[in-house]
């Protein structure tokens, strides 16, 4: 018996985030938490989510299990709902049944062996910045038509995001007073593929602040919270996004 009820908003944000890197995902279901880890086929970006019981309206499971799903199929089912609806998911043999108001729809589960859960590397960096998602998104959009990569520069008192091509340039500068928090001993720089970052921030609809940590020519780790608990407590779901640096040629 597996029966989960969750708000459409939460489920949609989960699906969108996973869909920034993959089309198929395997969820690990445990007594207090559902976790999912995915990496894109090129191994450039990884998304890890911890969705606690509190993010659900109803959370009934028999024991630990794994469910592999086609994320795009799930998204197309969610599209049938209104944004304030709830969805109830239940497992029926090899299918996952979605109930939204007076509609029910089942999609096939995927073979657990065909969807591989990646190993999650340990990222260590003492340098980080906590920035408003909206500000960060603005900096990314400024770079969008300039280049396909963006250079992040962090120093003890400011955070910059820069992009340049032969003929164009864009730069966002956020000084210490405009940031929630910043910790960086000396200046660090690293470039990242812009497309992945844009996809990520577009799917993070309910996050206010994000934490970016990196070092010179090293993967970027973006930590964020999103979603709403039953009692409307925000940021109940925890996520991280790992992105490989772009080598300067």
């Amino acid at each position, binding site marked *: 018996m597996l029966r989960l009820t969750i708000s459409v908003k939460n489920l949609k944000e989960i699906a969108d985030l996973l869909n920034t890197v993959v*089309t198929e995902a395997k969820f690990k279901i445990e007594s207090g938490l559902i976790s999912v880890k995915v*990496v894109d*086929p*090129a191994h*450039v970006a990884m998304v890890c989510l911890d969705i606690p019981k509190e993010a659900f309206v109803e959370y009934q499971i028999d024991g630990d299990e794994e469910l592999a799903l086609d994320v795009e199929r799930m998204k197309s089912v969610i599209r049938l709902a209104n944004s304030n609806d709830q969805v109830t998911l239940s497992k029926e043999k090899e299918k996952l049944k979605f109930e939204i108001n007076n509609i029910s729809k089942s999609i096939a589960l995927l073979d657990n062996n065909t969807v591989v859960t990646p*190993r999650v590397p340990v990222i260590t960096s003492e340098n980080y910045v906590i920035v408003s998602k909206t500000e960060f998104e603005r900096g990314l959009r400024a770079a969008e038509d300039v280049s396909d990569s963006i250079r992040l520069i962090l120093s003890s008192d400011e955070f910059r995001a820069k992009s340049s091509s032969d003929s164009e340039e864009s730069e966002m500068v956020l000084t210490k007073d405009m940031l929630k928090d910043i910790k960086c001993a000396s200046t660090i720089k690293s470039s990242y*593929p812009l497309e992945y970052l844009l996809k990520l921030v577009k799917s993070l609809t309910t996050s206010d602040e994000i934490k970016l940590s990196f070092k010179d020519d090293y993967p970027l780790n973006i930590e964020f919270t999103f979603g709403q608990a039953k009692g409307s407590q925000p940021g109940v779901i925890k996520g991280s996004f790992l992105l490989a*640096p772009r*080598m300067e040629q």
Partner: protein
Amino acid sequence: MQVRATMRIPPSLCLSCRGAKMLCGLTFCPISVNRIVVPKMKNVQGNSLSGSSPPSVFVGRYGYPKIRIYPSTPPEHGDTGIYESTREWMNMPMEDFLSMRLSLVRGGMDIRVGDAASPDRLLQEIQLMALSQKPVEVDMVFEKNLSASDVVLDDHLPPMGPSAPIRRIQVDTASPGKDVEKVYGDTDLKAGEAMRYLYSSGIDVSRISKILSIGAVGEGKARRVVPTRWSITAVDKNISDTLVERVKDYQQIDKFMAFVRPTPGNLFMGILTPSNWIYEWGESWFPGSTWNQWGKEAFVEIDDEGYYGRKDYPGIGGCYYSARLAVAEKFVGMRRSGGAITWREIYPSFNLPVGVWYVRENMRLMFSGKPEIFDTLDEAVNYLSGFMEVDPSRWLSGSKVYPAIRYNNLDRFFRI
């Protein structure tokens, strides 16, 4: 007319080979080519020629914008379509191909490229001939005897035979077919849109470049006759640009796909990568091959582009776009996206330029074959290195896509 090998072949070798064993190591027998071309050319008597043009019209580039166009025909009647059919050339021995193409006799006429904006009756006749779906009967009278030394051997163009200035030409009526007729008649349609329309109607790029070259497409006043060499690359580029953009919306492939195709004197290789669009075309010419006559070692040259393409013309030439078209067609066929590494090795036995069609058609055939599938780029490269003559490290150190794919991901930092 003499077709000469650029190396000296000892007579003893020819005597014990007699065109059968390829002892000289060339991919064609220069003696056989002469033997086949010379009798064919015997039909060319005096200063006139009558034949069935495949159809074929060559446009030179020298003196631009005052250039020369050459309606061409072999000295034979009947279905000569194979003279212009790049796909069919793939199944021919090199000497048959060469002797066929070298017997295409070209009658030269001076024109200005802008004449296509308001073509006179003669240019219209030649345009209609070039647009024809089927071979067209042509009678040409030349100002003087054919100049045998004036054959076309070019890295971009298929070979062509001797030429002489035209005094008179008579062309039979010909039908271009519905789709070509439509773009020819539509003087509001831009040339790029016309190319894309023709391609989507199932017309191959080799015919589209002929249509572009003769100045039969584009907005009325902007119509220009385009040198054949430029028109081929313009079409390969324009069509591949369109396909590459379309492919970007598809889902990515999820493994590395390695392809290989050995041909006489050449090795074609390709790796499709699970990544965003990124592309490179590399060539390695061995000492003694067409463009490396005096070198001591194989010369590796690679041009590449990232997700947004290139802004300048690749130094390696039009073959870059011919191979890119084959890559884009493969992704379209799979309805998947990805990146591509494409390399070609050219050995000493391949010492005659034959044109970029050779790259396009071989790459197309290579991608129609079954790939070997790998989880990592290094495994795919390792598989291809089993076929290579060039030291794999030379390919890898010159490659732009290899480090981008190999190092721009998380595997470089962690085992995932």
